[in-house]
């Protein structure tokens, strides 16, 4: 800054003035870069360390875990993983979660896209009311519905069934899905649809052959969003899938594993179970990070 002032007061030509100003900036950048990199690294470590620790601990023996949290495992004990997979049934819960989410995600996307398409592209009586009814669901906390929902599901004979979970997951994913996809369908050009209709394309074929393929980017974003929120769902299965533990989903299995670990002191089993549950999601995320990040943030930016 002093260099800059002096040059300015000397009143030299504009060209001369640019040089010292640049130098001043560069100096500021150097100090700030160390500073900023320090903080960035610190937060990076804070994020990665617990996960890395979990991964490393999943290979340790209970004794090693208890004696030295920072130590490395004496051997790669894959039997921890095997124990979590079979005895704690993490493998089965994983499969259960996959089955439920495959069903609910398909249902969510089908129904969400269909409803959103109708809201975005067709005029009919009661459209506004129906649209706001759907979108209004985003405002309500799930907690409020929990008690009556329990009885609705039980009276429908769906308590403790995967069908029940699939339907409920899909129903609670609809508000955001409809909201997001309606906005997306509205951005698509109308000319293509009009041309197809003039060429004699029916309304159903128009949707499946023309509009749905055009909406692919939006569909992918909202599918990623729904996949993660349904895969990570905890409160709904906790309430609607009590009892029969062979049908539990992953989140329930993990909490059960944590509870039994508390009694038996099987730390390595818990870490192995958590790692098994974490790794696939992290790997998928790392492979598709751009899509995942934009899928999760797109809705909020709208």
């Amino acid at each position, binding site marked *: 800054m002093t260099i800059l002032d002096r040059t300015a007061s000397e009143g030299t030509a504009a060209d001369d003035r640019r040089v010292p100003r640049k130098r001043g*900036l560069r100096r500021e950048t150097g100090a700030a870069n160390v500073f900023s990199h320090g903080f960035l690294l610190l937060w990076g470590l804070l*994020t990665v360390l617990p996960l890395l620790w979990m991964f490393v601990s999943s290979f340790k023996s209970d004794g090693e875990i208890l004696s030295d949290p920072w130590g490395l495992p004496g051997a790669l004990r894959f039997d921890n993983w095997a124990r979590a997979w079979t005895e704690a049934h993490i493998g089965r819960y994983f499969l259960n979660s996959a089955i439920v989410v495959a069903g609910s995600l398909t249902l969510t996307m089908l129904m969400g896209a269909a409803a959103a398409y109708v809201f975005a592209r067709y005029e009919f009586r009661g459209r506004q009311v129906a649209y706001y009814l759907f979108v209004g669901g985003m405002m309500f906390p799930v907690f409020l519905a929990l*008690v009556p929902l329990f009885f609705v599901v039980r009276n429908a004979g769906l308590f403790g069934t995967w069908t029940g979970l699939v339907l409920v997951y899909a129903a609670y994913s609809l508000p955001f899905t409809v909201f997001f996809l309606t906005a997306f369908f509205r951005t698509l050009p109308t000319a293509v649809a009009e041309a197809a209709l003039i060429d004699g394309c029916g309304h159903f074929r128009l949707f499946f052959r023309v509009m749905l393929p055009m909406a692919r980017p939006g569909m992918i974003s909202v599918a990623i969003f729904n996949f993660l929120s349904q895969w990570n769902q905890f409160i709904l299965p906790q309430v609607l899938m009590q009892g029969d533990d062979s049908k539990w989903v992953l989140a329930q299995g993990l909490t059960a594993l944590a509870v039994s670990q508390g009694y038996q002191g099987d730390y390595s089993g818990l870490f192995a179970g958590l790692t098994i549950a974490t790794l696939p999601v992290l790997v998928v995320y790392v492979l598709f990070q751009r899509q995942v990040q934009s899928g999760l943030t797109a809705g909020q930016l709208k």
Partner: protein
Amino acid sequence: MRHGKYPLILTFLVPPLLLYLVFVVSPYLQAFQISTTDWLGYSAEADPVGLANFETLLHDGRVWNALKNNALLLAVVPVLTIGLGLFFATMLNMGGRKGRAGVAGVRGTAVYRMVYFFPQVLSVVIIALLWKEVYHPNSGLLNGTLRAVGLPAPTWLGDPRTAFWCVLAVMVWANVGFYVVLFGAAMSAIPRDIYEAVLLDGASRWTTLRRVTIPLLWDTVQVAWIYLAIAALDGFILIQQMTNGGPNFSSDVIGLRMYETAFGSESKFGYASAIGVVLFFLTLSVAVLALRAARRDRIEYS
């Protein structure tokens, strides 16, 4: 009115609407009705008691204690998360000012962004169980580190003075990455020439952030505020899994209070629904307040 429009509208709209009415709308409506009864669990008897549940609520010390903790979460979590999120997003997007272009991110921006986002793709249950182990008084990563450098090792989750703050820290840890990516996306939408102009005028980093970036990001910050405020009124999964409200109700939150009232040892469904209704109105008013408090003129780049 083109021929064949209505069959499509009906087939596309009726199934999602039915699903949504049965599993989402009807439970919400029932919740309001149940909240005015003295319904005790699985018996069929539910007598209307008017607003008696809400009156009991006013004098329920546990509920007030839980609300106090939610208020603390509401006061601390959004500020910390948005502050850290803006800070890191700024570093990543314009931390390195080099060359004539003026604004650029620091080196490794993509890696940082990927890592920071990790907690967002993990289920909250996994995060809760992992951090419970990190805080473990004997074998935890945290106390292992503290002991290694010769510092005292507190009991963290076992101590009524610290338990709540430990969970709060995890809440911030889990959310910051998402907002770094969200703010980052919004920042990259700000035209570069604005920064070049500011840079030429010799503005410091801090001034740039305060006078240019944050005002231009205000819409996004406002959305973040609402989402975090709603999250702060929840916090159920983290609290239930990490401390279960303890020790001695020091980390209780309203969601857990409601869950325990409905599905705990005593199933007071009427009273639980009343808590749910209160939670609903709290969420609604917080969202409205956040919207109003954060209202500013909208800026659009043409």
